[in-house]
């Protein structure tokens, strides 16, 4: 393995882009870059055992140099195109139409891949997605069409040109499910895949190979270079090891690296993103959702509440499960504000056997057999009232105000001739389950009672006792087959972005007489690297009286 070539392979500036700009690469540094081509081919052929019929790959520099030859460093698309282009004429593969077709398909694939892994394209996709998302927060989402007709009228356009057509035609009234937005996300996903395949993986393959440099000149060309007079490469190696480097020596040359994981991690980032996207797609197509408002003491069947969200939503058997709300209650702060909602739920299977019981609250849902029940809302279902010792009557509470943090519920206890048109009675209002405010027939405030106190109150000659306040719990239910995949993606993304912070540093050194020539480079932390190198080289001991023999003996010992 020719080492200088290896070094050059270690050089690719980084992800997506060096491959799209051969214009810069070829004229600027023709010889070394060409070697990259050749080397890669050789390597590829060696590893794949000639699979894919890579003939005449050596012809890249000339042929590819003239043609478009974008991208394609390591995947050798130009030779392929050459082969299929020239093959038909030469008669080499004449008659083998299948082969030609195959070649065409492969060529198209390569072209598409190279187009997709183009960095400017990926960046403009990200910009477009960011812009659409911003637009999605500016335009009110999910309103009725009439809302947009009114807000973006045709005769008086916003900014002089934006009418409702601009909003409704591309579906920007529901931005995050509009075909434009989803299409861009899908495009980004393909770009991710293409970039990983054509750019990231080859870079890592190259970075993994460690190699020595045999000429002081190429070492001095590194981003960081220094020479240590009267030093020994073995001492340097030991010190490098102390700093966490993997060190290899062969004869007078040394190669050391650390943080190789930092090269792998970006691939992991891309794969994790793909996982998240795949999981989100599955969530969007294969999940069920439902929400239900159940008064305390009643039951419902899961399957009645759940509505499928996409064409992949198949109802599992557990949808026969029946949920019984044993109790709904709230806890309050001293100031009277709600601190937490609780619902005591029991699950019964088809045979009526209780399979699970749990008290859920906000931030603590119930999970059973693939579905999840969340505590999300509450309501006031009914008031149990005794009038003059009769009853108790159940009075249904009606929500009077739903929006905002503060809710308001009210009911009316009719007094006499309930058949007549203008019914008068006692009004009862409540903001929560704790206290009920009572008003008399004229609408005058009478008093406040707590359901727990059982304290009677006298209104218009009637003795009213509030026995109990029955709340209803607002539950959200869902099944989401995408969650495990999305979570796997989340975990991988966190891990790999952290690892991506690591910098892959490489150091080469060469014993040149009594002098050690050191060079190194790193892909991320450039300032820290040169500082670390300076600190590290300061520690290399200076050999006061050395002659060539001692060094030689050391080398042979190594």
């Amino acid at each position: 393995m020719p080492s200088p070539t290896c070094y050059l392979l270690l050089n690719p500036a980084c992800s997506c882009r060096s491959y799209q700009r051969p214009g810069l690469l070829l004229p600027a540094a023709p010889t070394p870059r060409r070697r990259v081509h050749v080397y890669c081919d050789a390597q590829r052929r060696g590893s794949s055992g000639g699979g894919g019929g890579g003939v005449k790959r050596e012809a890249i520099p000339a042929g590819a140099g003239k043609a478009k030859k974008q991208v394609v460093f390591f995947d050798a698309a130009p030779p392929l195109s050459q082969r299929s282009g020239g093959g038909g004429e030469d008669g080499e593969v004449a008659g083998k139409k299948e082969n030609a077709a195959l070649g065409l398909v492969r060529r198209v694939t390569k072209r598409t891949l190279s187009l997709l892994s183009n960095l400017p394209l990926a960046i403009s996709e990200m910009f477009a997605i960011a812009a659409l998302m911003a637009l999605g927060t500016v335009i009110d989402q999910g309103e009725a069409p009439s809302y947009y007709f009114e807000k973006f009228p045709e005769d008086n356009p916003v900014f002089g040109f934006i009418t409702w057509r601009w909003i409704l035609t591309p579906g920007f009234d529901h931005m995050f499910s509009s075909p434009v937005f989803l299409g861009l996300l899908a495009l980004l996903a393909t770009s991710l895949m293409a970039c990983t395949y054509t750019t990231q993986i080859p870079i890592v393959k190259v970075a993994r190979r460690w190699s020595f440099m045999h000429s002081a000149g190429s070492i001095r060309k590194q981003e960081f270079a220094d020479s240590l007079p009267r030093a020994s490469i073995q001492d340097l190696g030991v010190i490098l090891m102390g700093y966490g480097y993997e060190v290899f020596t062969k004869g007078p040359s040394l190669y050391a690296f650390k943080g190789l994981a930092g090269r792998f991690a970006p691939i992991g980032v891309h794969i994790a993103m793909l996982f998240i996207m795949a999981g989100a797609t599955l969530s969007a197509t294969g999940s069920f959702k439902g929400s239900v408002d159940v008064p305390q003491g009643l039951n419902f069947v899961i399957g009645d509440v759940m509505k499928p969200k996409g064409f992949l939503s198949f109802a599992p058997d557990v949808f026969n499960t029946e949920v019984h709300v044993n109790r709904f209650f709230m806890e309050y702060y001293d100031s009277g504000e709600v601190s937490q909602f609780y619902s005591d739920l029991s699950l019964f299977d088809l045979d009526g056997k209780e399979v699970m019981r749990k008290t859920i609250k906000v931030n603590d849902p119930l999970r059973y057999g693939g579905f999840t029940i969340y505590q999300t809302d509450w309501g006031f279902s009914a008031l149990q009232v005794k009038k003059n010792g009769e009853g108790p009557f159940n009075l249904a509470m009606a929500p009077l105000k739903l929006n905002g943090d503060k809710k308001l519920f009210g009911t009316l206890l009719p007094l006499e001739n309930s058949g007549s048109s203008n019914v008068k009675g006692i009004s009862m209002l409540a903001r929560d389950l704790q206290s009920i405010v009572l008003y008399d027939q004229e609408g005058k405030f009478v008093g406040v009672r707590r359901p727990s106190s059982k304290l009677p109150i006298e209104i218009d000659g009637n003795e009213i006792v509030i026995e109990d306040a029955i709340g209803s719990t607002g539950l959200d239910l869902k099944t989401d087959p995408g969650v495990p995949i999305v979570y796997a993606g989340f975990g991988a993304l966190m891990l790999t972005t952290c690892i991506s912070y690591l910098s892959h540093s490489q150091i080469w050194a060469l014993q040149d007489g009594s002098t050690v020539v050191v060079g190194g480079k790193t892909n991320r932390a450039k300032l820290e690297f040169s500082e670390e190198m300076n600190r590290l080289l300061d520690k290399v001991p200076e050999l006061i009286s050395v002659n060539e023999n001692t060094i030689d003996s050391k080398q042979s010992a190594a």
Partner: protein
Amino acid sequence: MLFATLEHILTHISFSTISIVITIHLITLLVRELGGLRDSSEKGMIATFFSITGFLVSRWASSGHFPLSNLYESLIFLSWALYILHMIPTIQNSKNDLSTITTPSTILTQGFATSGLLTEMHQSTILVPALQSQWLMMHVSMMLLSYATLLCGSLLSAALLIIRFRKNLDFFSKKKKNVLSKTFFFNEIEYFYAKRSALKSTLFPSFPNYYKYQLIERLDSWSYRVISLGFTLLTIGILCGAVWANEAWGSYWNWDPKETWAFITWTIFAIYLHSRTNPNWKGTKSAFVASIGFLIIWICYFGINLLGIGLHSYGSFTLPI
């Protein structure tokens, strides 16, 4: 009451200390000879750090929950995070340009938090049911740490742009200088000093551009490292938020405005990191992207709260006009 007084005292101590630190910074920048003052400015930063920490701890003790439930507390936490950021390179004992960004940023956030604008928010509030989770600590602290880090990184990039285009500064000064004048001012002076001292010591006065180049390289490198760190923290913060949302709201992603803008921020800095892989775009072009990111973070952090829309309405406030 005791806690309230304590918090009051601590905010005042930290604010006045950091004002002194800023003054010292200015003096040392203008009068190089007073080297001893530099040490005292570091001591001042440490004093500020302890008083902010003390403030947060007393808030925690008095309210019984992690002190990140409203905008005021989050701003205080932001300046605390900026301080942490200020300390990291100092511990590593490497010379850096971060302190020129972090010190004024700390005073600005703190000044804004304690100013009369948000007085009604100074009270510690109770936690609504949705916030009662261990995830609060993880998600919100990560988000604020990442905001602080990304703000510093993008300011470094903006400083790079200013220095790079110093000749046509008029163009920029109109647009951005009013927002960032303070930090730029520092960097400008730092730069002039670097240049002047370099000119004194070298015999080749024909190389002024070399020092400019070196400073730009340094700023570029620092902003890249700082933004990478902030991006990592932002990723963790957003994902923790998503997991939490799946526990509390029933879906890991709701396209809530705050979420969406956090994602936009993430995308912008992802673009920054990708643009750096192109040697041609490194430097100026990527610095442009990072400077856009600066504005986006403020929209995400403040703009959404100002509108008070969506599910993240806990930190919302109204301007008393």
